[in-house]
């Protein structure tokens, strides 16, 4: 039921169907980012993300994952190179089928607003009618296990609950492009696994492209159609790995041989990335 409320959007296109001349949803072309203090966070980074992909970014702490994600969200501008959204040089999320939402690394809730109001913010900003907004927010809150906490203020929540509130805020948008920066890092494994599954189901049932930052290799393999391993100082793409797995993934997949194998492979890549940045 919850899933339903959050996935009223058009079903996802059949895989391989030609869509809009197959322009990538996101394209980072030779992107560089140097912060004002001189830190080079990204170097000549090239990454293209197609419609309907679920791409996870893995990489050592400080390698530029958040920077890249913010750039995809249009919140940072590259120092060189450029980013394209659906083939265009600027984001226009009013376009149907091009709605975007993002979960930041911090919960980023408004301290003066109740949880439900916080989660309804993007809908309010987009002019979604109150009643519909409330229904979507309630569904999203229940999905993340905060159904009873819509009326409290953020400071009355635990750290993990705050993070879940911010996830609910993004889900309520029913986005077509979802950028998530370590969304489940502060959650217990049980809740995390459940939300992993829910997210994967959501992704399968809708026209949804996800870019997902995580530190959990298991999570990355479980969720993704593709995993990008980044290296640090300066941030760049070290490996771009397609994940093999069934369309419908369940707990069984987590213990399957291909799963463990792919995890091991990524683990090795990641160790390389770390060694690389520690040199």
């Amino acid at each position, binding site marked *: 039921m919850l899933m339903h409320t959050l996935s009223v959007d058009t079903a996802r296109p059949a895989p391989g169907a030609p869509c809009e001349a197959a322009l990538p949803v996101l394209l980072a072309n030779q992107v560089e980012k140097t912060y004002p203090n001189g830190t080079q966070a990204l170097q000549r980074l090239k990454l293209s993300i197609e419609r309907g992909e679920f791409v996870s970014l893995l990489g050592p702490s400080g390698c530029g994952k958040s920077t890249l994600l913010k750039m995809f969200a249009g919140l940072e501008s590259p120092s060189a190179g450029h980013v394209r959204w659906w083939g265009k040089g600027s984001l226009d999320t009013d376009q149907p089928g091009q709605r975007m939402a993002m979960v930041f690394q911090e919960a*980023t809730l408004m301290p003066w607003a109740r949880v439900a109001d916080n989660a309804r913010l993007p809908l309010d900003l987009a002019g979604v009618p109150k009643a519909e907004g409330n229904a979507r927010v309630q569904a999203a809150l229940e999905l993340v296990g905060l159904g009873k906490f819509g009326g409290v203020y953020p400071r009355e929540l635990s750290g993990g609950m705050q993070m879940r509130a911010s996830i609910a805020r993004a889900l309520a948008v029913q986005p077509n492009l979802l950028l998530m920066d370590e969304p489940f890092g502060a959650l217990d494994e049980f809740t995390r696994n459940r939300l992993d599954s829910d997210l994967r189901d959501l992704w399968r049932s809708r026209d949804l492209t996800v870019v997902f930052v995580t530190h959990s290799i298991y999570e990355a393999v479980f969720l993704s159609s593709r995993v990008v391993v980044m290296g640090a100082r300066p941030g760049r793409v070290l490996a771009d790995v397609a994940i093999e797995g069934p369309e419908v993934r369940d707990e069984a997949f987590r213990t399957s041989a291909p799963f463990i194998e792919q995890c091991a492979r990524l683990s090795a890549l990641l160790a390389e990335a770390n060694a690389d940045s520690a040199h």
Partner: protein
Amino acid sequence: MENSARPLLADPRFQRIAAPLFVGLVLLALWQLLCVTLKVPTYLVPTPLDIGRTLVADGPMLFAALLVTLKITFLSFALAVLLGVIAAFLFVQSRVIEASLFPYAILLQVTPVVAVAPLIIIWVSNTTLALTICATLVAIFPIISNTVLGLRSVNPGLLNLFRLNRASRWQTLLRLRIPSALPYFFGGLRIASGLALIGAVVAEFVAGTGGTGAGLAYQILQAGFQLNIPRLFAALFLIALTGVLLFSLMAALARVSLGHWHESEQG
């Protein structure tokens, strides 16, 4: 260590009222004692009892004057808040607008009322309006300054959230900048409420007509000319009391608006 059946003395609400009253009583007693033992003449510094007697004796007259001053105070305070907030909204739209116009807001603050009152009197024949304008000039700057500061003191993460969701300038102002600015804004209100009061008094000094319908400033001036110092102090006492009440009102407003989320109102 919390205790639901807290004794009255430890209740913060009780303290907030009792403590200043207690301090006030002690100070008044000390004052009375000093005046009596040092035989300070009444015309130099009257004793609290003298002032109290005058307050009672001249009560109706002083109270009528107080009402006149209060009217100007409230009108100018309302105007200062309204215009100050609008100006702050304008300034915060861009650094260039702020840089271009802020210096001219400072003019409002640093121009002596005495110097501009004659011009205002020429253009505005209604005395109440003229006084209100003068007092507004005195009170408006802290509102502008603190509100601008508050509107700028926005959590960068939340600002990103709003940008991400393509919030319009107006939406960002309404739903992000204004709530973030509230603690600063209320700080501005606290300062401006007192300034509106003192502005009303100063305006009356300079541009009031005097005579029958005059405010407390007139009473103070006349009492000064006539060396009726107890009455002067009684009038000052009324002004001070009004100031404290206004301040408490602003503090209460801040508590109601911010108590549930901002740290300045906690603990």
